[in-house]
C-alpha cells in the first residue's frame, strides 16, 4: 500500500497547517481541526457564535494557509441574489451582454452573517453550494475548484435575523461554535501583536493542487464494515430510538462518513475508527437534529442548558459500538 507513506507526508503537511493557524487563532485547536476536516471532506462549514469571537479571522487564516482565492460576502437585509452571483451588463463597445461574475466565483467564500440576508439571497448562495455551479440568465457557469463556503451566523435570537430553514442547514456539513477564548488564550491575544498584521505575514503552505490531493486521499481512507455498521446504528437511533423529531438523512450519514474520513487523515490513520466518527459527530449532527416527542420533552431542556454539543454527546453515549 503506497498510500501509507503518502499518508505520513500528508499528515505532516496538515500538522504544519494546523500549527500555523493555531499561532493566530489562539486556544481554538479543536475548532480549527474540525474546520479543516470539513474542508478536506469537501463540505461547507457554518460557524455560529456571537460577533467578535474570531469567525472571520478563522476563515481568513484558512484561506491564506491553504492558498485559496478568498472572497468575503457580507450579507445584509437588502442584498439581492445578483449581488452574490453576478450580473450581465450591456457593453456598448461590443454591443452584447457581458457577464460580470459576482463574489461567489472564488475558491473560499466567507459568507458573513448569512442569517441577516433575506431568504431569497440566502437561497442563491445555498444553491450554488449544493450544485457547485451557478445559473444566470439561462447560462450555467461552473464554480472554481475547490469550492468551500464558510458561513457565519449570529445565534438566531439576535435581532434582525432570518433563521436558515432546516433544509438549508442540511447543506452545511458541519456547524461549529467558537465560544469565548479561555483565560490563557485571551491573555496571549491581548498581549500579542495585531491579528491582521500576523495574517498578512502568513505564507501559503499548500500548492494549488495539493489541497485537491488531500481531499482525494481523505475520500480514499478505508472504512471497514464494522465502522459502517456503527454509523448505521447512529442513524438508526436518531430515526427510531432517540428523542428526535426526525432522524438523520442519508445525506447526513454520507457527510458523517466523509467527515470521519477527513478526521482520520488529520490523525494520520489509514482507516477510520469509531473515535473519528465520535470526534466529528457533534459538529455534523447538531444542526440537523431537533429534539422533540415525548422523550424529547424530558431531554430537551437538558440539551438546551448543556449547549450545542450536548446532542452529539448524547448520541455518542447512547449508541454502543456494534
Amino acid at each position, binding site marked *: 500500500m503506497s498510500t501509507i507513506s503518502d499518508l505520513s507526508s500528508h499528515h505532516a503537511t496538515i500538522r504544519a497547517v494546523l500549527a500555523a493557524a493555531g499561532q493566530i487563532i489562539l486556544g481554538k485547536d479543536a475548532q480549527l481541526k474540525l474546520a479543516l476536516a470539513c474542508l478536506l471532506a469537501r463540505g461547507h462549514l457554518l460557524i455560529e457564535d456571537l460577533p467578535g469571537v474570531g469567525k472571520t479571522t478563522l476563515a481568513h487564516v484558512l484561506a491564506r494557509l491553504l492558498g485559496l482565492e478568498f472572497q468575503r460576502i457580507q450579507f445584509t437585509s437588502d442584498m439581492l441574489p445578483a449581488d452574490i452571483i453576478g450580473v450581465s451588463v450591456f457593453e456598448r463597445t461590443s454591443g452584447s451582454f457581458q457577464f460580470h461574475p459576482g463574489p461567489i466565483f472564488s475558491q473560499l467564500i466567507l459568507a458573513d452573517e448569512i442569517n441577516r440576508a433575506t431568504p431569497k439571497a440566502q437561497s442563491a448562495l445555498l444553491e450554488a453550494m449544493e450544485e457547485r455551479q451557478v445559473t444566470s440568465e439561462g447560462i450555467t457557469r461552473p464554480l472554481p475548484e475547490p469550492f468551500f463556503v464558510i458561513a457565519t451566523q449570529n445565534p438566531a435570537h439576535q435581532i434582525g435575523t432570518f433563521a436558515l430553514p432546516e433544509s438549508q442547514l442540511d447543506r452545511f456539513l458541519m456547524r461549529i461554535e467558537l465560544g469565548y477564548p479561555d483565560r490563557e488564550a485571551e491573555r496571549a491575544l491581548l498581549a500579542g501583536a495585531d491579528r491582521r498584521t500576523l495574517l498578512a505575514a502568513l505564507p501559503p503552505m499548500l500548492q494549488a493542487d495539493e489541497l485537491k490531493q488531500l481531499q482525494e486521499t481523505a475520500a480514499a481512507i478505508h472504512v471497514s464494515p464494522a465502522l459502517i455498521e456503527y454509523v448505521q446504528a447512529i442513524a438508526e437511533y436518531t430515526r427510531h430510538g432517540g428523542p428526535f423529531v426526525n432522524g438523520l438523512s442519508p445525506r447526513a450519514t454520507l457527510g458523517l462518513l466523509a467527515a470521519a474520513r477527513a478526521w482520520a487523515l488529520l490523525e494520520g490513520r489509514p*482507516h477510520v*475508527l469509531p473515535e473519528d466518527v465520535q470526534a466529528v459527530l457533534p459538529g455534523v449532527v447538531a444542526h440537523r437534529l431537533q429534539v422533540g416527542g415525548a422523550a424529547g420533552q424530558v431531554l430537551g431542556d437538558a440539551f438546551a442548558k448543556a449547549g450545542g454539543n450536548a446532542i452529539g454527546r448524547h448520541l455518542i453515549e447512547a*449508541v*454502543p459500538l456494534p
Partner: protein
Amino acid sequence: MGKRDLSPTPRRLFRKKNACLPPLTLVQGWWLFATALAALLPLIQHLPLWLSTAAVTGMAWRAWLSWRNGRLPPRWLLFLLVVAACVAVAYSYRGFFGRNPGIALLVIFLALKLLELRSVRDGITVVLLACFLLMAGFLFNQGIAAALYALAALVVAVAALIALQAGPPVRVHERLGQSASLLGQALPFMLVLFLLFPRVQGPLWGLPQDAYTAASGLSDTMAPGSISQVAQSDAIAFRVQFKGAAPPPHQQYWRVLTLTDYDGQVWRHHPTREHDALPYAPAGPSVDYEITLEPHNLRGLPVLEKAGLLPPESSFSADRLVLAATPVRSRMRYAMRSYPDYTPPPEENARILAAALSIPPEVNPRTRAQARQWRAQSSSDADILRAAAEFFQSQLLAYTLNPPLMEKDAVDAFLFEHKRGFCEHFASAFAFALRAAGVPARIIGGYQGGEINPVDGYFTVRQYDAHVWVEAWIDGWGWVRVDPTADSTPRRIEGGLRTAIGGGEAPLLARQDYAWLREFRYRMDAVTNAWNQAVLGFNPQRQREVLGRLGMSEPDWRKMSAWLAGLCGALILALVLNAMRERKKHDATRHAWQIFLRKLARQGIDAQPWMGPDTLARRAAAQLPQHAAAIRAITAAYVALRYGDELPPELRRRQTAALRDMIRRFRP
C-alpha cells in the same frame, strides 16, 4: 474535555434517596401506572366499593404527586395505611382466608407500593404484583375475553419491565412492539407447556368455598318463583354433542335432581341413603352423546331418560339419576348413553314409595277434595293419573313467566283462583294432587329442550330451558314421566320457552325476532365452546388423547416431563443457534477483545459500551502505565483486524491468533 460532562441527565420522577438504587424516570413511572391500572381494572367489579375507591384514590394521589413533583408520603403514614387497610379487609370479609380477601390484600399492596415507588427495584415489585393480580383474575373468569384482556395487560406489563431496564426512551407504540415481540418469542414455550405439562384432575389448586356462591342455575330446593328466576337467564347450562341425530323434543328431558319432600311451600331433595338403582332393561335403540357441563354446584349430571352408562367417579342414585362424587365446580365433560325405551322394574322400594306419598296435613283443602273424588271414581292408579291430567286441561291453566304471588295454599290458589303459573306451579300442583289421591309422585328438576347451534352443530341447553315435571309410580309401568306443563301448554315442549311465551316476557335471546342477534350469539357460542373444549377442558383425559394422537404411546407424567424437558431444550437450542448465526462476522476478534475488556475491568478500568478502542487504550495505558506497551500493541492489533483494510483469510486467521495470544499473555 471538561465541558463534555454536560451530558444531559433525564429529569427524575422522584427525589433521589438511596444512591445505589437507580431512581425512576417520569416515563417509567407512567408505564408502571398503566400496568397497575390494567391489572386492577378487571378486578374492580369483584371488590367491595370502599376498596376499589381506596385503590383508585391511592393511585390518583400518586399520579398527582409525580405530576407536581411532590414528596412521597412518609414511611410511618404508609405503615398506618397498611394496618388500617388490613383491618378493613379482615372486617369486611370476616377474615383473611379465601379468594376474595386474598385478592383484596393484593390490591391494597399494589396501591400502596405505588405510593412508595422510588427506585427501579420498587418498579419491578409493582410489575410482579400486577402480574399476580392478572393471574388472580382467572379465579373469577376464564373466558376468551378475559384471556385476551390478560394477554394485552401482560404486553403492557412487559413493556413496563423493558422501560425499567433503562435503554433509550422510545415511543409508546414501539415499546409495546418490543414487548409484544418478546412475548411472541415465548409463544412456542407456552404451547409446549400447555400440551405437555402433566395435568391433574380438576383445577390445579383448590378454590376456596366462596368462589361458588354466585353459580346460577338449578338448586336442590324448589320454592315458588325459583325456576322462573332461572328462566330469565340465557347463560349456558351445558352443551351436548349427539352421536347421530338428536332425539325428538318430547324425549329431550334432561334429568338432574329429584324433589320429594313437600312442606306446603317448598319442595326439597330427599336426603335418602343411596339405594340400589332399579334395574331398567333396555328395550330399544340407545342415544349416545357427550355433554360438556358448566359448573352448577350440584351432584346430579344432566342425562336423558334412562341413563345406561356411568362416567368415571359417579354413581346411580335410587331414582336413576347420575350423581358425581362431589358437586360439579368446574366445567366437566362426560360421555353418556341413554335408552328412551326400556322395560320398567316390577317394584319399587317401599320406603321410597312412602316418601313419595307424604303431604303435609291440612293444606290445599280444595285440591284434596278433588283428589278424593278421583280416588272414589277410579279403579286404578292409572285411571287417577288420567283423571288428573284431564282435570288440569279442563282448568285452562295459563303458562306465564310472571305468575301472581300465591302464599297460603298455593296449589289451591293456582288451580282454582289465578290459573296462571310457571312450570313449577304446574308440577307442584300435579304432584300434590297425585299424592293426595294416593298415587306416589315426585318432582324431577332438570332441563327440557335445547337448540342446535348451526355454526358448530353443538346442541346447546341454556338456563332458560330449566324445567320441572312429575314422575308418578304406576304398578306395571314403573315411574312414568308426566309433564303437566306440556299437557296444558304443549308449545312449551315442542317449541321451547320462546314460543310458549310471546313477546316481551321472554329473555332477549329466547325471542323470535332479532334474528341477527341470535346469529351473532350462535357464533359467539361456537367460539366460546371451542375455547372451552380445547383450552379449558384440556384435562388429563384429553391430554392423553391428544398426545396419543400425536404418536406418544401410553403417555404418563414421566414421559410427558421428559418430552417437555426435551422440547423446551430443543427450542432454547434453536433460539441460541439462531442468535449465534446472527452474530457478526469478526466473531473471533470481538470475542478476544471482550476477554481483554474483562481483564481491564478487573483492574477497575470501566469500558463503556460506546467507547472506541483508541479511547479505551489511552485510558488503560494511563491507569496501568507498566502495561502501556502491551495495551497499545493489543489495541493496534485489534484495530487493524476490525477497522483496517480487508485482509486475505489466511493472514486474518494468523493475526487473530496473534491477538488472542497477546490477550492471553496480558496479565495486569
